[in-house]
């Protein structure tokens, strides 16, 4: 059996592979089957909308041109494109998206990662990451302003001395104050990361733009 073609193919090739797949992949899939998977629209929350509207005021021309109004649907559209760019540019190879319960990480970044944070369309495939040249980004949203993020993407060393991060000039029309469609998408995606948390920094008092303008 252990030296026959059938044994090698059926037991070693198929059998053991199937055993590993069931025990290591099907088990967690079944365990989490009751956690609903959110769409990008469903993940858009008040904290993200604050930043999205901030983008529309800071970069009105570009925003108007590429996204029109700062609506939830447009935020979801920007998130999807932003996620694709985050993958396509390989951001996830130098930035992780999970805070571990060890190595003082919760002191540096915030709450330890939980399963439900990843049950959404934008974590398909999941962006855990395996290397940190730069810091973890899963609690980056709201930590820094859109201006800072734009300048940092355009030329990281301007705001982060000694940073080895590449420059992403192609997210802008020649100047960090002119983000392109892709630039706005990436900025939205970065501000989305961790926006679902209670401990999201600074913006607990958020109110939508319309009410602010309507106030006498």
């Amino acid at each position, binding site marked *: 059996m*252990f*030296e*026959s*073609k059938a044994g*090698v*193919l059926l*037991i*070693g*090739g*198929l059998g*053991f*592979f199937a*055993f*590993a*797949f069931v*025990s*290591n*992949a099907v*088990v*967690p*899939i079944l*365990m*989490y089957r009751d956690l609903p*998977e959110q769409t990008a629209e469903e993940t858009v929350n008040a904290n993200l909308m604050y930043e999205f509207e901030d983008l529309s005021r800071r970069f009105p021309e570009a925003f108007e041109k590429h996204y029109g109004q700062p609506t939830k649907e447009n935020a979801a559209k920007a998130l999807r494109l932003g996620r694709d760019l985050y*993958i*396509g*540019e*390989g951001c*996830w190879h*130098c930035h*992780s998206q*999970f805070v*571990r*319960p*060890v*190595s*003082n990480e919760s002191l*540096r970044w915030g709450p330890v990662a939980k*399963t439900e*944070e*990843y*049950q959404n*369309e934008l*974590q*398909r*495939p*999941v*962006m*855990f*990451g*395996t*290397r*940190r040249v730069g810091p973890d980004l899963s609690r980056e949203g709201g930590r820094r302003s859109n201006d800072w993020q734009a300048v940092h993407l355009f030329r990281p060393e301007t705001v*982060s*001395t*000694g*940073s*080895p991060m*590449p420059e992403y*000039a192609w997210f802008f029309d020649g100047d960090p104050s002119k983000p392109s469609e892709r630039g706005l998408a990436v900025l939205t995606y970065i501000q989305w990361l961790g926006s679902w948390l209670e401990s999201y920094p600074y913006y607990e008092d958020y109110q939508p733009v319309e009410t602010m303008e309507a106030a006498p």
Partner: protein
Amino acid sequence: MIAGSFEKEGGDGDLPRHEDLVDERLVRWHFLAALTFLAVSLLGGLLMALQLIHWNPLRGIELLSPGRWRMVHTNAIAYGFLANAFLGALYWAVPRLTLKPVQSPALSYFIYFAWQAVVLATAVGILLGQAQGVEWGETPVWIDPVALLGLLLVAVNFMTPIARAKGPLYVTLWYFMAAFVWTFLTYAMGNFVPQYVAAGTSGGAVAGLFIHDLVGLFVTPLGWGLMYYFVPVILRKPIWSHGLSLVGFWGLAFFYPLNGIHHFLYTPIPMFLQYGAVIATVAVEMVVTTVIINFFATIWGSGRQVVTNLPIRWFYTGMVLYFVTCLQCALQVTLTFQALIHFTDWVVGHAHLVMFGVFSLWLFGVMTYLFPRLLKREWYSQQLCEWHYWLSTAGIVLMFTDLTLAGIFQGYYWSSLQSWDVSVDGSQPFWIVRLFAGLGIIGGQLCFFYNIYRTYQLGPKPAAATASGEPIPATT
């Protein structure tokens, strides 16, 4: 039929002739494609290394962005270099072991061109920013089905002679057979499940399986299969223990697929699955030890071959580094080590040691052995062969040591809550050393490329001097 590889095909009327079994042109083509993609991968690695130390001369160019080239770097080495070099070696080894030709020459050439198209499309797709978010599987999603079809055709092409072979199967063929099944399943699992079936954490578990299985169930069984074939052939004596090779194969087959989740320890993946992966990983180390013992017992008594016979030296250097890799794996996979070294350059050092220090070295050994046979002439320069060996070996050992140390420093910088720039600044000396280690490796390959070119220019010797299957003194 083990005997087949030891006999002079063509000299014995009952056995098929080597010329009828092996399409040498195809072996050559696959090797040349492999080396082309190796060069691409090395350039990608060089660009990334330069970026980290602020010396990137090409900054600000979208298509040359280091983040994209980093993915070309890994994909070119896995699917361009390793896959092509393995295919070349398989076209030599499988027909000679089974005494049957592959399914069809037409299919072989179709696979050749299809695979180059797949790898090229992958590189172009990644450079255009279309990567898929699965590590080691960044192949754009629209190429995945084509690549999978290619893997299926490869399996059909090589399973035919194996299925037709008479008598008990030699250990090499167990590894190859299992590898054809595993590679196909692994590729399908890793590229489709996290993308289309399971989101989030459980998708992460599958992505972990994929990262690991790509090395463990595609590269490793093909690599060891080649070692079980070429080492006895070149040493002209059988493997020391058949029993141990059984332990090695079945141990790998059972434990290796259970390891994947160890790439994502301390994530929200259920903890009992993480523990299971850790235990299975330590078990793999035990299995690996039996394989290493078997190979060192095989060379026992012919130890001088490591000095005099270059392919054997490549093989055994790779095996020593394999043992180091696996020993390191058994340690670093524990939660204690993970807390410190995960996310650091330690892991990058480990990955380079596996992919270059073990499997690339083995394939360089196979190429060093086969090129004179394929081109029907001796190497242009033994000196250049030696330079290739020493620069590659010294380069990877230096890179591994350097990145491992860097990882420990980075881990402590982070856990001691120093500002993030401290870990980046503190890494600079290590990254600079890594650049020079990489340049050493590149220099070694340049010697190899030049040597192949000059060897090709020499013109063939009379066939009698280099009958295939006969050891050629050029490599000894």
